[in-house]
């Protein structure tokens, strides 16, 4: 894969998506995507412009199709379907959520099928050769913090999933657009004038969401693995002072298990992988309300580790 989406005239890009599909490379995964939906095509052209693609046939990990259902729902209260390898794993969503179902669906594919990795629901970023793992439940402020760090010189590995290679203990990068919700969208728009957002999708189950385009360096360096050094469980709380509190490794272990998509599938290998991960990291609980202070905290922490 040598071309990027931006190297392809939009009409060609759109034509391939509407026809045989395009293979998009996001780190270790190749996704063949087909869609005729204009908003999805335009959002992809914007948010995935720097990703390697191929218009030729070849191996793909996931074959996806985002399309309108063949029913009256094409016209009345229109809906959209997500198809993966010819099956439709989810109920359809309202038509305006077509782009969201692509991102959510791809996340679902990875978390359900990429068992060559131990996968933890977490943001991962790297600076100066050391990575921070930010696991978090929805609403904990993980994505906002991730976006702030990614726009402040940190290399994005993922906003959603830490991919850990059991054999090496290293983190594998699969940078994708960062999904931000509700107030976080404006927080990041105000935080950085260089933030590029796709369309805002309203009335999802998570409220309004918009996707932040990753920095090009994160995409170009996505083959570079890194060593985890810090695990911090973030928690956003309005008015909270920035605090980084050490967390015992055994407690961190248990919380990571709860945040893992496939720990139980991995069995003993999963246990050994998390044990190794925890052993190589300092573990913290992190509470914040100021994004600037939060970024400064992690910048300082990583500098102290050098």
């Amino acid at each position: 894969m040598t071309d990027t989406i931006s190297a392809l005239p939009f009409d060609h890009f759109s034509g391939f998506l509407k026809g045989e599909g395009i293979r998009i490379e996001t780190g270790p995964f190749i996704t063949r995507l087909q869609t005729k939906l204009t908003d999805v095509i335009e959002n992809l052209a914007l948010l995935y412009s720097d990703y390697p693609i191929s218009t030729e046939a070849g191996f793909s990990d996931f074959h996806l199709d985002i399309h309108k259902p063949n029913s009256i729902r094409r016209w009345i209260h229109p809906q959209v379907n997500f198809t993966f390898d010819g099956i439709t794993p989810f109920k359809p969503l309202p038509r305006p959520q077509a782009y969201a179902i692509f991102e959510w669906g791809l996340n679902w594919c990875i978390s359900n099928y990429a068992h060559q990795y131990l996968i933890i629901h977490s943001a991962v970023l790297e600076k100066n050769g050391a990575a921070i793992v930010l696991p978090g439940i929805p609403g904990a402020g993980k994505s906002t913090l991730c976006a702030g760090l990614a726009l402040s010189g940190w290399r994005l590995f993922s906003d959603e999933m830490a991919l850990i290679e059991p054999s090496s203990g290293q983190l594998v990068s699969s940078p994708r657009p960062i999904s931000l919700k509700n107030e976080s969208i404006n927080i990041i728009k105000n935080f950085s004038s260089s933030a590029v957002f796709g369309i805002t999708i309203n009335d999802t189950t998570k409220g309004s969401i918009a996707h932040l385009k990753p920095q090009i360096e994160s995409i170009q360096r996505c083959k570079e693995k890194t060593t985890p050094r810090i695990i911090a469980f973030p928690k956003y709380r309005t008015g909270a002072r920035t605090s980084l509190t050490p967390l015992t490794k055994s407690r961190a272990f248990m919380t990571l298990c709860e945040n893992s998509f496939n720990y139980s599938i991995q069995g003993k290998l999963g246990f050994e992988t998390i044990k190794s991960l925890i052993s190589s990291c300092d573990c913290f609980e992190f509470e914040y309300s100021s994004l600037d202070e939060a970024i400064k905290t992690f910048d300082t922490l990583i500098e102290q580790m050098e």
Partner: protein
Amino acid sequence: MNLNGASLKVSHSAWSLATSGEYHWAQWNDSDEIVLYFTGSGDTFLISYFGYLLLDALKGSPKTAEDLDKLLSASDSIPHDLLPIPKEMIDSHLFHFQKLGLIEL
């Protein structure tokens, strides 16, 4: 069975580690809680240091609660100012471990 009934039972029975799986431990020096992965159930547990000592003492041969009390009391693993070990503490741990499938009669 209530805990008192169970207590009577566990005190006079010889316990052994469950034979349905292997025990894998993860321990760090920043706390006295220890992570246990038991392959028999695929479950992961956060175990207290005392719980760890009990399970560790069950390696090898079956032991009664009384045997365990003597073994742990004679070892250097428990500070002397914490002795004697309350009988209920051993019984409740054994009862709990049995419920988790980690030990058996």
